[in-house]
């Protein structure tokens, strides 16, 4: 039988950083960002460059907070939503840093933490930089319509988060947060074809991963302070709740979703909530990490959720499969 849970040895978070945009500055988690840039171009002249600039700033913040240099880091791994992951790889152009590019759609932050933790745990790397990003404008341009195009969004659609979260894995005495366990997600196809309802496309994948974790772990969901999916949004969150209920799986009110935490769904024009790699990345690197180091939370489960599609598969009316990776973060 397969072991569902990966148990890591001595993988700790040395530091984190996160950078966001204007909409994120108007949301309830604005206090947890290192920087909130009101200029969506980040001082650049294209959306693609803007996203890379955002990521560069996040990485630089992380290094300066950790008082480290690129040469102190053994490996970097990360990804974004743009074709061929350019926003991430272009950041490291002149950085003299080994790099693994990842694509897990919006689950990328969790995926990069898992890859990073595997390298650290097996001592192939002492310090690993994990990061993920998305930018509302570059994502709209690639996946939907030009920004100036006049269209209406359905209530189940979500709004891509402009943000980059970066997490440095290592193990110094000072580290307060451990990356303890993980479950690698399976591809789950729920048959959903509506690109404006990604929450529905990803809910089953998230539920599957959570149940696989608790099926093998001897912990109860009650032992956790927060169990958060990455970006199901309100629609997917409510669907997931319904699916848990049907499976008679009790979550003791610990369940929430990063896509609902990052914005004020009533006041901000984001429909069902936030989405994108940046969503779970900034909520984890900012809000969750802060809760863990302050002792306000001791155990957090992050379930990064990714909808796997490209514009062509959508036009071909293929369904949208999803993946959900679980990472357990514990305060020590």
């Amino acid at each position, binding site marked *: 039988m397969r072991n569902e849970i990966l148990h890591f040895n001595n993988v700790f978070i040395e530091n984190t950083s996160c950078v966001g945009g204007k909409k994120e500055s108007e949301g309830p988690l604005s206090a947890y960002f290192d920087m909130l840039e009101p200029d969506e171009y980040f001082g650049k*002249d*294209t*959306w*693609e460059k803007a996203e890379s600039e955002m990521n560069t700033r996040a990485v630089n913040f992380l290094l300066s907070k950790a008082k480290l240099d690129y040469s102190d880091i053994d490996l970097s791994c990360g990804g974004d939503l743009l074709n061929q992951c350019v926003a991430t790889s272009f950041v490291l152009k002149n950085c003299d840093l080994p790099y693994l590019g990842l694509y897990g759609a919006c689950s990328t932050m969790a995926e990069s933490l898992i890859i990073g933790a595997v390298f650290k745990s097996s001592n192939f790397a002492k310090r690993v930089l994990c990061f993920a990003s998305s930018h509302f404008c570059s994502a709209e*341009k690639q996946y939907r*319509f*030009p*920004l*100036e*195009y*006049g*269209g*209406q969004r*359905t*209530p*189940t659609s979500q709004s891509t988060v402009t943000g980059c979260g970066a997490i440095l894995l290592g193990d110094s005495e000072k580290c307060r947060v451990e990356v303890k366990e993980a479950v690698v997600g399976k591809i789950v*196809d*729920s*048959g*959903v074809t509506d690109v404006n*309802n990604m929450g*529905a496309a990803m809910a*089953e994948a998230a539920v599957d991963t959570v149940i696989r974790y608790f099926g093998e772990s001897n912990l109860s969901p009650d032992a956790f302070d927060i169990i958060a999916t990455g970006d199901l949004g309100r*629609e997917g969150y*409510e*669907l997931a709740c*319904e699916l848990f209920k049907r499976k008679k799986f009790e979550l003791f009110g610990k369940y929430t979703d990063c896509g609902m935490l990052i914005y004020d769904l009533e006041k901000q024009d984001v429909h*069902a909530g936030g989405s994108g790699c940046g969503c779970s990345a900034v909520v984890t690197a900012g809000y969750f990490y802060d809760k863990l180091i302050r002792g306000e939370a001791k155990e957090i489960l992050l379930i990064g959720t990714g909808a796997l599609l490209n514009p062509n598969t959508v036009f071909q009316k293929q*369904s949208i499969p999803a993946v959900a990776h679980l990472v357990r973060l514990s305060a020590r």
Partner: protein
Amino acid sequence: MTHKEYKKMTDDRAKRSPTLLNCIKAFVTGGLICVLGQALTVLYQELGASVELSKTLSTISLVVLAGLLTGIGVFDVIAKQAGAGTLVPITGFSNAVTAPAIENKTEGFINGVGAKMFVIAGPVIVYGTFASAVYGVMYYFLLRGGLAG
């Protein structure tokens, strides 16, 4: 759970667009744009243009205006409310041409502006032209057969 059951479960609970409100907004904006088109036609006629020329000038004016509003970033704000009210009039066509042209300027004037200009509105030209040509051929044979004209 089968895909069918899951689809039913998601469809049953998915929040719907407020159709009635959307329809009212679409009716008012769409109606007003047509009134503007008519007013411009009347205006050009007053200024001495022929009936045909006035209609053409009115169309051009709406296209130019919608493009300008797209450029200054006002069109999509209105369209978010108006929905089909700005989409269906010729203004929607103009917006669909202008928006990708502006957005893709970063890829240059050939591969960006030039190549992407009709990425949304292209099908309108393709199928409109095709339909008119098919109709033209049919009309020709109907005329020859003495069934039309």
